[in-house]
């Protein structure tokens, strides 16, 4: 899979916002792209219908990735992307249901989008709608107790229409997870909470596809895909560096270097800078 265009658009929007979280955007973007382009059943023109799949970005600080994907699939116009985080603009720093209803939840407080998605999965099942709900959480997000409250609820109720994804880039705001509060053994934790667990490389298109195909076949349990990812994936100076969690401002030279590495031509780089 080559999502260089998406990575460029997301970084460009963060550059123009003068703030944002590039590291987690780049680690999450391949999976979000797969969901909207290959996995989910939805109509880009109709988010009011009940019978559609849903995606909640619980790690809402990666909203720039979701917005870029939404532009690629035609939910929003790509001309809107550089309004990210700007006054009077619908693209809020963290997803907001009122200004971007297609983004499902209002996020920005970790743990809540996960619960919101569980509520959607439960609500759909109650109404005999067979569609699925996908929710992406961050690794640091699992330090929130609410996640484990929701994990127990979802498995107790056998929500097999729910599929969570951990963007496991091993880094959180200040440092590596293991230096903040250890998360491992993650697979054993989720299995002991009654979930079906699939571990993959979150940047490998084939592994992503196989994981979502497998998740759909698992009955009576929710599934979590633990996606090993690289924070800052695709931009060498950002990869695996806690400094690029953000929220931070990208300079001209940083953006130029990142776009160039992501295959942009000189002309495209100039256009990106001028917005």
């Amino acid at each position: 899979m080559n999502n260089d265009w998406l990575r460029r658009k997301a970084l460009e929007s963060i550059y123009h916002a003068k703030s944002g979280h590039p590291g987690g955007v780049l680690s999450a973007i391949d999976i979000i792209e797969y969901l909207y382009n290959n996995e989910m059943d939805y109509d880009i023109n109709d988010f009011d219908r009940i019978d559609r799949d849903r995606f909640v970005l619980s790690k809402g600080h990666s909203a720039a990735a979701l917005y870029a994907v939404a532009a690629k699939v035609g939910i929003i116009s790509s001309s809107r992307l550089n309004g990210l985080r700007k006054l009077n603009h619908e693209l809020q720093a963290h997803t907001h249901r009122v200004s971007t209803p297609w983004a499902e939840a209002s996020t920005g407080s970790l743990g809540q989008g996960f619960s919101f998605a569980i509520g959607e999965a439960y609500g759909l099942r109650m109404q005999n709608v067979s569609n699925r709900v996908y929710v992406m959480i961050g690794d640091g997000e699992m330090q929130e107790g609410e996640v484990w409250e929701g994990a127990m609820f979802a498995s107790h109720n056998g929500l097999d229409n729910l599929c969570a994804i951990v963007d496991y880039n091993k880094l959180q705001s200040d440092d590596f997870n293991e230096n903040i509060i250890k998360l491992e053994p993650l697979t054993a934790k989720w299995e002991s909470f009654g979930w079906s667990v699939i571990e993959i490389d979150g940047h490998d298109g084939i592994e992503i596809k196989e994981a979502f195909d497998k998740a759909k076949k698992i009955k009576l349990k929710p599934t979590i895909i633990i996606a090993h990812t690289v924070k800052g994936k695709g931009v060498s100076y950002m990869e695996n560096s806690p400094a690029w969690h953000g929220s931070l401002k990208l300079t001209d030279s940083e953006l130029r270097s990142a776009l160039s590495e992501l295959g942009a031509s000189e002309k495209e780089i100039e256009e990106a800078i001028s917005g």
Partner: protein
Amino acid sequence: MAKQPVLLGRAGDSLRESFGKELTALSSEYENVVVLDADIAGGTGMHHFRKAFPDRFIQCGIAEQNMMAMSGGMAATGLIPIVTTFSVFMLRAIEQARLSVAYANMNVKIVASHPGLDVGPDGASAQCLEDIACYRSIPNMVVISPCDPTEMEQATKAILDYVGPVYMRTGRSNTKRILDESYNFEIGKGKILRDGSDVTIVACGVEVARSLEAAELLSSEGISARVVNMATIKPIDSELLVRCVKETGAIVTAEDHSVIGGLGGAVAESIAMHEPAPIEFIGTKDVFGESGEPDELAEKYELTAAFIVKAAKRCIKRKLA
């Protein structure tokens, strides 16, 4: 077989029970209503709903944060979730109420039992004296505290008809029925229950009955007190408050809640802006409660009719000064 213990507070005319019964009665018609419970349905009145609609009763376990944020997701599928637990635990989940309910503007009804000193012997940890202040400050959130079973029944229907987030207080203790069927609850409207010209007592919840008692006591001393039932704390009925200030010139607020930020705060903000007048506050004075019977607590923490009478006299004196 061992004798079953008697569950305290299950029977009777408490606000939580009247809410539970009315919600259950309405839910045949309101097919989208679902109840979320955190292992406390016996205490919130939701045991009635659980029995009638087991498939629409969602046991969330002792996990209020997940319950609150999940309710937003359920509303996103077209359901009308009723989130129920004690009011102190609504404080525990207030950040979820803020983001996943109010900010997202979801059609969720947060209905809190066990507010105030009315909780009684369970003590300070359960006596929530801060919920109105906290929930009132959240944008999009309507805040309601009915005063008796009649109003609770009407308010239950009103919040189901209203589209948007609501926080509503019920109550633990048995509550006298003070309103008859001619009463007409409306969200956002205060109601004059007794007219008067020297002072207006603006009350909500269990303090409405005590305010009516206070007005009777004042009357025997030749003081004419108006009593307003301000069941909707947000949005506050500023139009009625302005009228009361113009016609009586003095305001006393009364609530089973802290004097900081609750009904008293809402009334003070409104009249300071629109029609300033002397105001006195009946409520807990920035302190926690303790174990004891509700009437004993009301006496110790100065919420009874006798204290409302004193406050009314102080306020009238300030008006005349």
